[in-house]
């Protein structure tokens, strides 16, 4: 291998590395747009025994980690949910969340499901909640999404 070949290989390697870095950076930015999902775990009697979190967005999970969830009944037959969310960050952060509702057959029940944007202080635990749109609701999931990044458009 002569020096010209070595130079060519070195330059090609640097160029490929640039491509990899660019693609990696965009993959990372794309990852920031992922939504984390929280589902209640239920005991045999239907009571909440904990939560399961699907958190593909690790950054979001660090500033909006669900630590527990509670349910009650209002107006004699309508489910109300409250969830505690903790931020392990050292700076004030923002995120958005929404509840989605399902009946006993697992069918989605519409209404009361718009995104709510909230602010969370460093090391703070906040409580967010919602009331089901209908007495038919028997289950729910919580979706947590990152709020607008100045350097990344969240447009679909």
């Amino acid at each position, binding site marked *: 291998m002569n020096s010209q070949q070595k130079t060519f290989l070195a330059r090609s390697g640097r160029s490929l590395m640039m491509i990899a870095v660019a693609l990696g950076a965009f993959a990372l930015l794309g990852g920031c747009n992922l939504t984390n999902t929280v589902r209640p775990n239920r005991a045999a009697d239907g009571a909440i025994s904990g939560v399961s979190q699907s958190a593909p967005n690790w950054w979001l999970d660090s500033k909006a980690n669900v630590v527990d969830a509670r349910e009650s009944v209002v107006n004699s037959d309508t489910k109300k949910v409250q969830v505690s969310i903790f931020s392990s960050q050292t700076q004030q952060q923002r995120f958005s969340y929404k509840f989605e509702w399902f009946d006993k057959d697992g069918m989605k029940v519409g209404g009361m499901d718009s995104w709510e944007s909230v602010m969370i202080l460093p090391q703070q635990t906040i409580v967010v909640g919602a009331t089901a749109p209908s007495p038919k609701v028997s289950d729910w999931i919580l979706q947590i999404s990152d*709020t607008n990044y100045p350097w990344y*458009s969240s447009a679909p």
Partner: protein
Amino acid sequence: MKNEKSLTVRNFAFATTLTALSMTIGCTPTQYVDSKGTNLVVSMNKVNIQDFEKASEALVASMVESGVLSQAPNQPVALSISRVTNDTSDQFDTDQLMKKIRISLLQTGKVQVTQAVGLGGKVEDPMAKETYEAKRFLAGESQTPVDLPYFTISAKILENSTSAGSTKQVSYIFQMSLANTASGRLVWEGEKTITKQGEKNAIGF
């Protein structure tokens, strides 16, 4: 020859990076967006659709949680919409709020909106009222009392604006009251304030 190859690879890398950058920060074409999504336009000088959505959800949730709807003797309870005042600088149809409120309340199954009476004698659906009256006449029930609402809802939307330097802040205050027509008393009141701060309109929240 080899220098040309190297140049080609570098050009390819440059072009890839440039394309990716332009895709990220380039102009956004007109597109459909989720009306309940987080990438809607946030305006500094008007009430946006997401503001109506949030206000209606918060007010209905508060009303349902209070339990007053279950206290009515006849279920589902008859409801009517009274005066709704838009006291903001933004000229919008108050049905953007009230229709959402009604939809959500009807979905609870605890409420039905009567068309037998309306504010100032006007009802939203005159055909429903006329048919109701015709059926009552044919059934010989014209002299019996009509289905009067047990609850009435009134609402007001207010605006509070201020600024510091070039940063503007506007708050829209959605106030709502529920009156029991049997007693003439207000049995529930709710308020939701939505505050926006910034220098200009933006996309996303």
